[in-house]
């Protein structure tokens, strides 16, 4: 890789990081708190890339004028073959740009969710009733993971069994649930999408079942007595009060509180 190409690779990677960081594209891959670091890294790479390109052109012109060898290339004379070989790996930096180009920016969706069940999660100590009171709404908005973990605890289970709550997630289907049931799903992320695990809640009594992978806002109430019809139907189970189709939120993942 010539100094010019290397600087182009640095610039391209920097632009990708900067663009991801300045739009909501990064939220499909990372937790929101990474944003400033991504922007800073992108900005530094863009600056270094531009300056490198300018310098490489200047050096080329000087070299062309004097018909001299490129001083920088010859400075690494101790193992030129190995050096060039390792620098050749720099072309791989095209791959992230190509992946975004070909696949678009995609958050983890129904396919990834269907092929894995929820990983065991760390102990949970969140007081849903207190949180709901602080929200001051009749149907407080919760994360799926709140319902998933809360339903396994005595205090939170009581609250969930007696209150309607609002949830946001995408739809995965399960044939065992019949025509009026589906699974509401959302991924839980602690650092980036590489450590994501799906959180699933079974929804029954829906007026209609939305298409798989579509995002919906659901109001529903936990039913602790419902017996799931098949072992692969996720627990807990909620009875749907209303379903509204929505777009994918800018933050597609949930985090532990």
């Amino acid at each position, binding site marked *: 890789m*010539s*100094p*010019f*190409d290397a*600087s*182009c*690779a*640095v610039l*391209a*990677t920097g632009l990708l*990081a900067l663009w*991801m960081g300045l739009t909501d594209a990064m939220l499909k*891959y*990372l937790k929101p708190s*990474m944003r400033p670091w*991504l922007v800073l890294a992108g900005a*530094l*790479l863009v600056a*270094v890339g531009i*300056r490198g390109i300018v310098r490489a052109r200047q050096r080329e012109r000087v*070299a*062309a004028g004097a*018909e001299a060898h490129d001083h920088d290339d010859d400075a*690494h004379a*101790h193992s030129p073959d190995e050096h060039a070989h390792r*620098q*050749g*790996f*720099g*072309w791989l*930096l*095209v*791959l*992230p*740009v*190509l*992946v*975004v*180009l*070909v*696949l678009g*920016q*995609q958050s*983890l969706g*129904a*396919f*990834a969710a269907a092929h*894995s069940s*929820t*990983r*065991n*999660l*760390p*102990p949970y100590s969140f007081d849903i009733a207190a949180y709901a009171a602080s929200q001051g709404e009749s149907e407080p908005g919760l994360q799926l993971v709140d319902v998933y973990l809360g339903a396994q605890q005595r205090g939170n289970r009581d609250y969930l069994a007696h209150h309607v709550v609002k949830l946001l997630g995408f739809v995965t289907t399960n044939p065992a649930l019949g025509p009026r049931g589906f699974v509401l799903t959302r991924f839980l992320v*602690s*650092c*980036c*999408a*590489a*450590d994501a695990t799906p959180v699933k809640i079974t929804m029954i009594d829906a007026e209609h079942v939305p298409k798989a992978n579509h995002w919906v806002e659901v109001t529903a109430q936990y039913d602790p007595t419902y017996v799931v019809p098949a072992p692969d139907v996720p627990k807990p189970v909620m009875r749907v009060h209303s379903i509204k189709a929505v777009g994918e939120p800018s933050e597609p993942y949930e985090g532990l509180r």
Partner: protein
Amino acid sequence: MTIVAEPEGGSRPQAEPRHRIGLIVWLNIGIFFLWQGSVQRLLPYPELQSWGTIFMATMLQALPFLVLGVGISAAIAAFVPGAFIARTVPKQARYAVPMAGLAGALLPGCECSAAPVAHRLVARGVPPAAALTFLLTAPAINPIVLVSTAVAFPGHPEMVAARFLASFATAVVVGLIWARKAAPHWMREPEPEHDHGNRADAFVTTVTTDFVQAGGFLVIGAALVATMQTLVPQSFLNRLGGSGLAAVLTMAVLAVVLSVCSEADAFIAAGLTQFSLTSRLVFMVVGPMVDIKLVALQVAVFGRQFARRFAPLTFAVAVVAGSVVGWLLL
């Protein structure tokens, strides 16, 4: 792409057509980028989507830390006087190694920043064993990692102490073994520093060279991580289990294969309640020191000869240290 630039004029240097091909490649990518996503509808492979998301997540997660590491390394090369660092570090490994371990523990770093910085320290005359101890402790026991461990294991404050002790012991022992046994040629010689021209140019040249090289290997690492994760879903973990030595070894291998970052691994370990606390400790000790993307970065920065010896040594020492500390404390 088969574009051959026509030679123009007699006085042009020979490198010119090659440069123009590079320019065309990068420009094309820029133009295609405007249509991004339109191709994806032609590729109805959901596995590929998941792979792409995990690949990009791993890349983007590592990128700021790699840039930070490369930036610090280049800043040392360009702005810190030649002998300054070597003078402040003891020459003898038995003093330098523990000191480097503590320095790494105090500095908040991530696994991806540590390798370029450690390599620069070697270039500046720090004993290699000490620089490698720094490389191991910086990501494994910094304040952020210890806090996230405390949050993930609310009922086990001793886990934080155990993680600190086991990681520190691993780094120091690996450093001391390296000081005694390693041959100098195993580690690739650092690039000569660009001391001609002005300092800003030296900084830009060093960042470009180091980033392009390490970034290329990071792409390989991220692609492997994404492939493993797509083939082996995380729920697979729920089906594993065990006790004693089997559990310890399973968790150690998982740490290498999953390659989660050191901030997140405590949350995964905390959930794996079917494993013993000791084996989960081993998971958290091995993970920040040896995993797929880290080994890829070590190959990029220190060379293949180095990584082939250093990664297995670190893995073995980490498993033993984690088991012993776990047996004593947990």
